[in-house]
């Protein structure tokens, strides 16, 4: 028997919005410690990793480890039927081939059950090595989203350069070039600040296409963290308050000669 109840159901809606454009289908790994999902997008350029801790749920029970393969667009359609203040419960029997989503209105007067078929997905699991990144930047997630969107108008790639002074985003295309500089903030009031933890300066180039997928997670957190090292995938991480996090890994674009 698996059961996970989340009073703040809108968080689960947001998690799905953050991954459903990147992944068509994915497996949710349910264990005693919580729920995990890891999958590459279909072109194998990026990797998504979602982690929801058991303690983050208002009720959590997982008698046996369970892998639930789901069509994420169907799951998203179902979650769209939940109101933002609904309590959401996911339930499955131990050897079930279906999962049930239950939505309860706060006053308990409306209760909805949605039952969905599970799928057998053959997905590989990648090991992500512990890495000491050369540079970790924390910044407002809305600012990062805006920058990715703005620069996508200029070219297919965004170049990110990080130094002690700040972080720079660069794009070029047929209408001209664009250059955005964010200075490290001196006053460090948590959510709003730009904070740079730098071992050595890094400059890397990434495809706009994927960055624009990642920023769908913006509603989950006011802050985003970017971790970079030379010639290594970028990590874009959003914390889900009290519940877990979602991490996106993106392979860089590397010059023919650098590689």
């Amino acid at each position, binding site marked *: 028997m698996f059961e996970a109840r989340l009073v703040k159901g809108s968080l689960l809606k947001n998690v799905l919005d953050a991954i459903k454009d990147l992944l068509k289908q994915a497996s949710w*790994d349910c264990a005693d410690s919580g729920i995990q999902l890891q999958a*590459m997008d*279909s*072109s*194998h*350029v*990026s*990797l998504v990793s979602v982690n929801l801790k058991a303690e983050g749920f208002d009720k959590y029970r997982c008698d046996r480890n369970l892998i639930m393969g789901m069509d994420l667009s169907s799951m998203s359609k179902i979650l769209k039927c939940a109101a933002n203040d609904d309590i959401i419960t996911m339930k499955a029997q131990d050897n079930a081939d279906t999962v049930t989503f239950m939505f309860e209105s706060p006053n308990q007067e409306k209760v909805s059950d949605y039952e969905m078929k599970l799928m057998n997905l053959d997905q*590989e*699991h*990648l*090991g*992500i*090595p512990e890495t000491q990144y050369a540079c970790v930047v924390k910044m407002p997630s809305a600012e990062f989203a805006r920058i990715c969107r703005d620069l996508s108008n200029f*070219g*297919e*790639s965004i170049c990110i350069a990080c130094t002690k002074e700040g972080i720079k985003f660069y*794009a*070029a*295309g*047929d209408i001209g070039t664009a250059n955005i500089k964010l200075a490290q903030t001196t006053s460090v009031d948590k959510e709003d600040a730009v904070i740079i933890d730098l071992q050595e300066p890094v400059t890397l*180039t990434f*495809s*706009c*296409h*994927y960055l624009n997928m990642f920023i769908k997670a913006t509603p989950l957190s006011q802050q985003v963290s970017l971790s970079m090292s030379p010639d*290594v*995938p970028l990590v874009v991480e959003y914390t889900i308050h009290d519940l877990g996090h979602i991490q996106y*890994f*993106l*392979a*860089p*674009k*590397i*010059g*023919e*000669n650098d*590689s």
Partner: protein
Amino acid sequence: YPVKGRKTKQREETTAVVILECEDGRMLLVQRPKGGLLASLWEFPHIALTEESEEHWEKTVGGQVTELFGVLESDAASRTFIADVTHIFSHIRQTYRVYKIRVASERGVCWPERYQGGQWMTREQFLSSATSTAMKKVLKAVEAQEGKSKDKKSKKSSADQPSKKQKTISQFFSTVAKK
């Protein structure tokens, strides 16, 4: 009188590359195996041209595209030759004979098992996928032929991507057994 053999420092190879385009303009890309040269990169379907004589090549392409990729014979017959594209890999001078086939429907199209998978991609999806420079050249040849590669676009890509190559994530992380 002994016939003098051709000395070729670079090996020369010719392979057919087929752009399968479906009704809505998306093209079939297949993903190479995880090991070997160009591991995990996406490419247009390749047809080996092992026949000696060029005369047989056309026939080979028509036959193989049907057999290996499930294209209908009627569609296969309507292929158009686009151009020869040459790309030099370390010791190989590779010539791609590029063909284009519009398939009436995606349904029925398949690919050999050695590929990791296949996907119908738009031009943009293809350009932001992990692919080789050679395949980008092939696309350019197709677009030049079709007059699609407007000045603007080519200017853009040159300004924008000074020969940067999209890596795949699996080049960095390796598969592990599930806990």
